[in-house]
């Protein structure tokens, strides 16, 4: 099968093009010579299947960032039949050198000028025939977002793939000593084929930035947006969540229970009280999580995050971080794993490590499930949003405190230079794809961790069979007994401590395991929690859940990205210490005050 590599700078719509080209049937693959996973997908081009690889966005082959190294290593170790170079048409003046670097390497290529719609709006005129002639590569103009020109581009790529190419080994050492040559070539080609407007027309971006980057209003507006998005998610998500919970209870009461009535109690107990309740309770949060990611997608694709980096950099600089670190914290609200991988754009190792140390404190969507559950059970409808908001605030504070304490160890002189893309509205298609991606992600985690975790919890609380379930004589009771001296001072009882142990694997298991421990789900489970705990214990439990290490996937990612076991262990240990100290301070203070 022929292999196509997609190459381009960040913010060129490369991934959108990839999704259009392959119909988003992408999977993650391992490649020789590189340590990170790349998205690949098969697609039918003309009569042949081709494998398309989405390379990370890079500015040039010279670069020293992790991503640039990945691209160089990939092209050195893997033969490609065609490189599709995606350039942002509105920035052709500075993106063309990347295409010329590919030409210098002697790789067969097709040039795709994306964002044709925007370049036209800007009054740019690009003569693709002249560009093809002077570059020696076929050139296609598209709008990957709206699909304009897409079929032609597809044909061009298919056609170029048919032409016989010698797939020579790429020797990147010999590359680009002649920078000035590329510079003069760029100037010559632009002169011949591109008509740039003399002045950038005033666009909505300029008008929006006047408010969103306003010296005094910028930050308040950011916090206001966060708050409104948050409100939007929960106002819309709560009825959906209740709906799913209702369906799950109905299925159990009317379908599963009568059907399993004659089964051996241990088996039906495991299946119903263990797996069904556990996985079901977690599943009822999926609508909120999907909404959450849809909103994240909107914010991410809009170009606003670069503005946030601008607004926050002054504060972050004083903590030894930079504006991008703050953006990673925001991304971590979705899931810490991609946020940790996102630190690859940082070239300086100390800065990267310090950012990786703070990202796990970001309140991810899995922890959000635990908090939604506990606040719904223990707090009034009026108090619940305030409690949630306080946890988000604490998430930032613990991250900032950690940076402040460790910045002396990780001193960086990395320059902070990033692009400010124009604002863009994502299409429904992009948003829908992301939503679907999250559902799949949940189902995968459900089949992997959540079910296994819930089964383990149920077994621990029900074995051996000759003692009463959930008593101190069960395996779970014994484990909880060992932990008692540590966890009693912070108000966490035996059942909760077991949930915390399994929270190590994945936070989704915390709620699932509570359901399995008590053999209840939904409202009944919440009612029981409200009987057993007071709000001080519940808040202490949430505080611990927030701060102690997020999950196995995050630990594995920390290890992989830092390539240091020592760093990973330190991060885990620090989060445990900080979690315990915070809970101890909170719990003892609240009790001393008479709550």
């Amino acid at each position, binding site marked *: 099968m022929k292999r196509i590599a997609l190459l381009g700078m960040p913010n060129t719509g490369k991934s959108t093009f990839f999704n259009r080209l392959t119909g988003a049937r992408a999977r993650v693959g391992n490649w020789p010579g590189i340590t990170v996973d790349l998205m690949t997908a098969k697609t039918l081009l003309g009569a042949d299947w081709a494998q398309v690889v989405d390379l990370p966005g890079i500015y*040039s082959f010279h670069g020293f960032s992790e991503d640039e190294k990945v691209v160089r290593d990939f092209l050195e170790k893997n033969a490609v039949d065609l490189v599709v170079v995606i350039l942002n048409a509105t920035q052709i003046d500075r993106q063309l050198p990347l295409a010329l670097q590919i030409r210098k390497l002697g790789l067969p290529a097709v040039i795709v000028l994306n964002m044709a719609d925007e370049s036209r709006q800007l009054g740019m005129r690009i003569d693709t025939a002249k560009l093809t002639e002077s570059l020696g590569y076929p050139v296609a103009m598209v709008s990957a977002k709206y699909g304009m020109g897409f079929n032609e581009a597809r044909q061009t790529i298919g056609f170029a793939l048919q032409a016989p190419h010698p797939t020579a080994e790429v020797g990147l050492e010999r590359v680009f000593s002649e920078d000035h040559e590329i510079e003069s070539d760029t100037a010559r080609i632009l002169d011949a084929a591109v008509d740039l407007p003399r002045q950038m027309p005033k666009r909505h971006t300029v008008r929006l930035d006047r408010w969103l980057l306003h010296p005094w209003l910028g930050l308040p507006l950011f916090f206001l947006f966060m708050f409104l998005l948050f409100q939007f998610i929960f106002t819309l998500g709560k009825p959906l969540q209740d709906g799913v919970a209702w369906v799950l209870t109905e299925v159990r009461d009317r379908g599963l229970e009568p059907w399993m009535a004659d089964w051996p109690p241990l088996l039906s107990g495991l299946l119903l009280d263990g797996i069904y309740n556990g996985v079901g309770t977690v599943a009822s949060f999926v609508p909120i999580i999907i909404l959450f990611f849809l909103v994240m997608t909107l914010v991410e694709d809009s170009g606003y995050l670069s503005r946030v980096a*601008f*607004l926050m950099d002054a504060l972050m600089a004083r903590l030894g971080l930079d*504006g991008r670190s703050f953006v990673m914290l925001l991304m971590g609200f979705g899931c810490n794993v991609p946020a940790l991988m996102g630190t690859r754009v940082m070239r300086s190792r100390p800065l990267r490590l310090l950012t990786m140390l703070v990202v796990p404190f970001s309140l991810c969507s899995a922890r959000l499930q635990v908090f939604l559950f506990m606040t719904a059970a223990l707090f009034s409808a009026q108090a619940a949003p305030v409690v949630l908001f306080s946890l988000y605030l604490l998430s930032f504070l613990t991250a900032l405190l950690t940076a402040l304490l460790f910045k002396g160890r990780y001193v960086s002189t990395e*320059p902070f*230079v990033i692009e400010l893309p124009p604002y863009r509205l994502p299409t429904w298609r992009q948003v829908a794809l992301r939503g679907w991606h999250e559902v799949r992600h949940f189902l995968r985690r459900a089949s992997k961790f959540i079910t296994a975790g819930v089964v383990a919890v149920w077994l621990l609380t029900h074995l051996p069979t000759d003692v009463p379930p959930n008593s101190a004589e069960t395996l779970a009771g014994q484990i909880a007994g060992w932990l008692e001296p540590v966890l009693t001072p912070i108000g966490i009882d035996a059942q909760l401590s077991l949930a915390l142990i399994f929270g190590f694997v994945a936070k989704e298991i915390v709620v699932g395991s509570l359901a399995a421990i008590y053999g209840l789900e939904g409202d009944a489970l919440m009612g029981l929690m409200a009987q057993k705990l007071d709000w001080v214990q519940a808040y202490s439990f949430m505080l611990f859940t927030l701060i102690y290490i997020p999950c196995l996937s995050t630990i594995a990612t920390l290890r992989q990205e830092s390539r240091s076991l020592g760093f990973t262990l330190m991060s885990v240990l620090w989060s445990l210490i900080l979690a315990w100290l915070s809970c101890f301070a909170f719990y003892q203070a609240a009790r001393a005050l008479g709550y």
Partner: protein
Amino acid sequence: MTPDLSLLHEGESAVIQSIEADEALHHRLQALGFQTGKPVQVVRMGRFSGPLQIRIGMTDVIMRRSDAAKIKVGPRL
């Protein structure tokens, strides 16, 4: 002393005279369009000594003042 980009005020433009950065930053700036002889504009300055918003050609870039200081410019346009 040659003036540098960090000394310009909000809204002012000047032509790049030279870029005195290490190799890595030099390449990055070049990839973003910073080249000797090109005009740059300081669009916006962040509060509390925050970063600058710089316009070069069709591209907007944000950078810290310490990095902007490495870009030497001619007289204000």
